[in-house]
């Protein structure tokens, strides 16, 4: 079994492509009748899905993993613990699952990358969902110590009230430009043409 596409993608840190590469490769290998279960990089495959926020596919993959593999490879089980927390939306639990295992060299980079992406996702969620939040919760959502979390958000312009232990969220003005170029005009002409015929 040739896993070089996966290792190549890991080497250049194209973590967003890992899930697709693994999917395609797995179908190929299976069609050749090779029994791949024992050597398959399940942990990496699962992490690839988490990186893309595709918890459904991760869950289906987990269901196909033979019990013997689940039992003999603690890293696979550890990766799925992250999945469980994501699945139940235990936001703080995700970080605990990340920290709760001594990841192998191969998985380490990927876990760190996922952790970063996840923190960013959580920051965006807080930004869109909260007007004020306690420092304790902020730290849980971002997976940091309370001090680190406050520094992280203060940099982004949020204000901290030490007395009440509250953080006020500052909305970011998202600058999207309403750009219209000539190709759009062309398409508009086509629509009108279609409607008149």
């Amino acid at each position, binding site marked *: 079994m040739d896993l070089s596409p996966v290792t190549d993608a890991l080497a250049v840190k194209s973590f967003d492509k890992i899930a697709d590469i693994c999917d395609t490769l797995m179908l190929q290998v299976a069609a050749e*009748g090779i029994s791949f279960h024992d050597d398959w990089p399940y942990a990496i495959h699962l992490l690839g899905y988490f990186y893309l926020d595709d918890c459904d596919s991760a869950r289906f993959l987990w269901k196909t993993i033979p019990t013997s593999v689940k039992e003999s490879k603690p890293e696979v089980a550890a990766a799925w613990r992250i999945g469980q927390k994501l699945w139940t939306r235990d936001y703080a639990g995700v970080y605990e699952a990340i920290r709760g295992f001594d990841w192998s060299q191969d998985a380490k980079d990927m876990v760190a990358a996922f952790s970063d992406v996840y923190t960013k996702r959580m920051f965006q969620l807080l930004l869109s969902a909260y007007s004020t939040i306690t420092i304790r919760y902020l730290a849980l959502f971002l997976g940091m110590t309370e001090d680190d979390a406050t520094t992280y958000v203060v940099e982004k312009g949020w204000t901290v009230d030490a007395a009440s232990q509250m953080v006020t969220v500052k909305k970011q003005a998202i600058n999207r430009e309403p750009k219209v170029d000539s190709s759009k005009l062309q398409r508009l002409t086509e629509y009108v043409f279609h409607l008149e015929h």
Partner: protein
Amino acid sequence: MSTVEAVITSIQGLSASSGDLYALHDVLKGAVDSLRTDSELQLSTLDQLDPSKHSLGYLYLLDVLTYGPVSKEKVLLIARFINACDAVQIRLASEKFVSLCKRFKDKVLELRDPLLGVAPLLAAVRKVQVSTKRLTALHPDCLQLCLLAKCYKAGFSVLSDDILEVDQPREFYLYCYYGGMICIGLKRFQKALELLYNVVTAPMHIVNAIALEAYKKYILVTLIHSGQFSISLPKCASTTAKSSFKTWCTPYIEVGMRYNDGKISELEAVVVANSSDFEKDNNLGLVKQAVASLYKRNILRLTQKYLTLSLQDIANMVQLANAKEAEMRVLQMIQDGQIHALINQKDGMVRFLEDPEQYKTSEMIEIMDSVIQRTIGLSKNLIAMDESLSCDPLYLGKVGRERQRYDFGEDFDTVPQKFSM
């Protein structure tokens, strides 16, 4: 020269041009019966051929060789052939190719290794398909394997084309049913609803099991996706479906009715009472998702009534344990883009907002553009279908006869229809 040798020679000599291939096809058709009884034909015979160059001949020989009990070795041989074969050649004998693929699928299931068949069948669908609008006999088999192997993403890729041409109703029923299940698994409920709707509203004279199971899932997905249940079937459903579906789906109708009432505890009671039915239908998970969606629907209703509300009030109104749970529910809904709101932890309040989308960004224009283009494509297809129908001799013949029956002309004393025996 023996039959096998002669056939091999013809295959090797006649696989290049399309004219040759037609001649070869005749040779093969003539030789099939004698090949079937020829003990000289062995797996090793195939080594003399290249599956990608001699696809048509290879297909005929492989078909003969894989009758009866099949070893894993032969299954893998079929897999390799499907992968390597030339699409143009196998389309000359597409029925044979389809039956070989179906046999392959059955064997894969016998081996309890559905994953083995996913990639070959994905390839087979693409190869046998003349146009992406056309449903092939292999679509349902491919989706079934994807479901069994839990390769939902791979299955979803098959569903991306709009199907407009169908040969066999059964294939279409199964395609939509399995497709609906794939979409449910990936939580693409709108797409799932579209597919299941096709089965529920398909023309039918007698109720069939596929349509019935599709209707059960249709009810549940409607609840999850649109948050309400309608006892009457869609208008365009057949009379058969309208009259008999309900008698077969009483537990599901019951769930729908209680869902409409909006009381969680009553809904849960119905689910518990009928849980063995749901389990038997393999729908218990989906039923539970429907129950969970009632919380969301109830919160959604609050956003239409109130501008601000305390978390405790939300918990009381939608029957949640406490303010913390209400906060988490609201947060999840914001994360999924179902509502727009701001949680204020300081005062324990939630402020509901309008959708901030102003439909003026270039991303939104892109989305609208693609929707318009899809609609234009659809209307073009409709016009093309209308035109081909109005030129169809069968249709014209029928319309012509009907017109004759009513058009008696001026010369005749018209007799009312019911008296003309």
